[in-house]
């Protein structure tokens, strides 16, 4: 037995091939843009036995028909920079030019919690947009609300596409670290979908979180500032290398207020 087992690498040439090779996801590492997975492999923290490259499986593209937008899983972040707000703002604020050109929507949705690094920037937008995730895995293909997908976790699922009804309005506000080594520390997304307000936060926990407390407060007639204070009912900001929990806790209500104000 060699010290290092060479992994089996499958470059899926079609959606069918990707779905079939993924199977129930039990013994396969999916590589889309590679921005999250490749450093793990390079540094020996992840040694896949089977690696499934889906970048050329025809899973990318943005389709808009009859008030509904469908985005393929391997669509790059760069291709989403002009997407409906707040998704567009999330995409534009994600890392830098080169990363946006490589990273994918699916990878971002399935991102493991960032250990001292920003992850899942698009998740808050998808929550605010009440998006649905269409995935395959054990039991075959299924479609579910993004909130359920995030709660269950991505293990065992291969995202195929994400879809949402075009929003009536969308807005966001963020704390960004600009210039050299740009990234978004924390972002609040708000959208009005089917007459309903939805508010979500990324960068204040392992995955993005929806804030029903803010939504209810607005529904009950609270103004932006008062409603914004309620966000800390749903979000427990953490400490990491990007920001302290104190800083997150202080800025989060401000971001919520700004997003709500911009939405009106």
């Amino acid at each position: 037995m060699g010290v290092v087992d060479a992994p089996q690498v499958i470059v899926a040439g079609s959606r069918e091939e990707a779905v079939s090779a993924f199977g129930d996801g039990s013994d396969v590492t999916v590589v889309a843009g590679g921005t999250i997975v490749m450093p793990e492999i390079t540094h020996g923290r992840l040694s896949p036995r089977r690696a499934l490259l889906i970048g050329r499986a025809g899973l990318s593209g943005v389709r808009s028909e009859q008030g509904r937008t469908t985005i393929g899983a391997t669509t790059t972040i760069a291709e989403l920079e002009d997407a409906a707000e707040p998704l567009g703002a999330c995409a534009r604020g994600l890392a830098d030019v080169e990363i946006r050109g490589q990273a994918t929507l699916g990878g971002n949705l399935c991102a493991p919690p960032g250990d001292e690094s920003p992850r899942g920037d698009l998740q808050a937008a998808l929550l605010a947009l009440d998006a649905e995730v269409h995935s395959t895995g054990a039991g075959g293909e299924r479609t579910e609300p993004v909130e359920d997908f995030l709660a269950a976790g991505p293990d065992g699922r291969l995202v195929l596409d994400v879809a949402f009804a075009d929003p009536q309005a969308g807005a966001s506000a963020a704390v960004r670290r600009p210039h050299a080594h740009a990234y978004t520390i924390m972002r609040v997304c708000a959208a009005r979908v089917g007459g309903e307000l939805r508010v979500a936060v990324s960068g204040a926990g392992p995955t993005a979180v929806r804030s029903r407390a803010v939504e209810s407060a607005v529904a009950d007639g609270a103004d932006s500032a008062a409603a914004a204070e309620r966000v800390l009912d749903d979000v427990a900001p953490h400490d990491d290398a990007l920001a302290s929990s104190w800083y997150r806790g202080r800025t989060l209500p401000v971001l919520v207020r700004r997003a709500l104000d911009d939405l009106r």
Partner: protein
Amino acid sequence: MRLTVNGTEHEVVAPPLTTLLHVLREELFVTSPKAGCQQGGCGACTVLVDGEPRRACLIPLAAVEGAAIATVEGLGEADELSGVQAAFHEHYAAQCGFCTSGFVMAAQALVVRGDGAIEREEVIEALSGHLCRCTGYVKIVDAVTAAVRSEVTTGSPA
């Protein structure tokens, strides 16, 4: 696996999950892209893949089979520098030089995109994935802004 680098086609033998950076540096001896962090965070490994700036340390070889890779080595030589290279040299935009290759390729992508009216802030935004510990960035931004404006408007080096 076939890979075209700076216009020359190569048959590479590295395993398919090997990073493009490793293939370029260790198999093809194209050493201008650097291993600064191997996590995509520093920008020193940036090359052009089919004209787009990308982190070579994040790309598995199998994902770029058949693609055209461009690195600094293909831009110009000492006796005939490209516009971007000349601008970096004129503006003293390199000190230790380790980050330079990545910045130059990112700048080249901007030139190719062709926005002669580019603003300094846009240049800074476009270069925001690149770290430099020596220069403090000002001269790099000067060089790239000059290169993009000049190259596009006059078609010749700054």
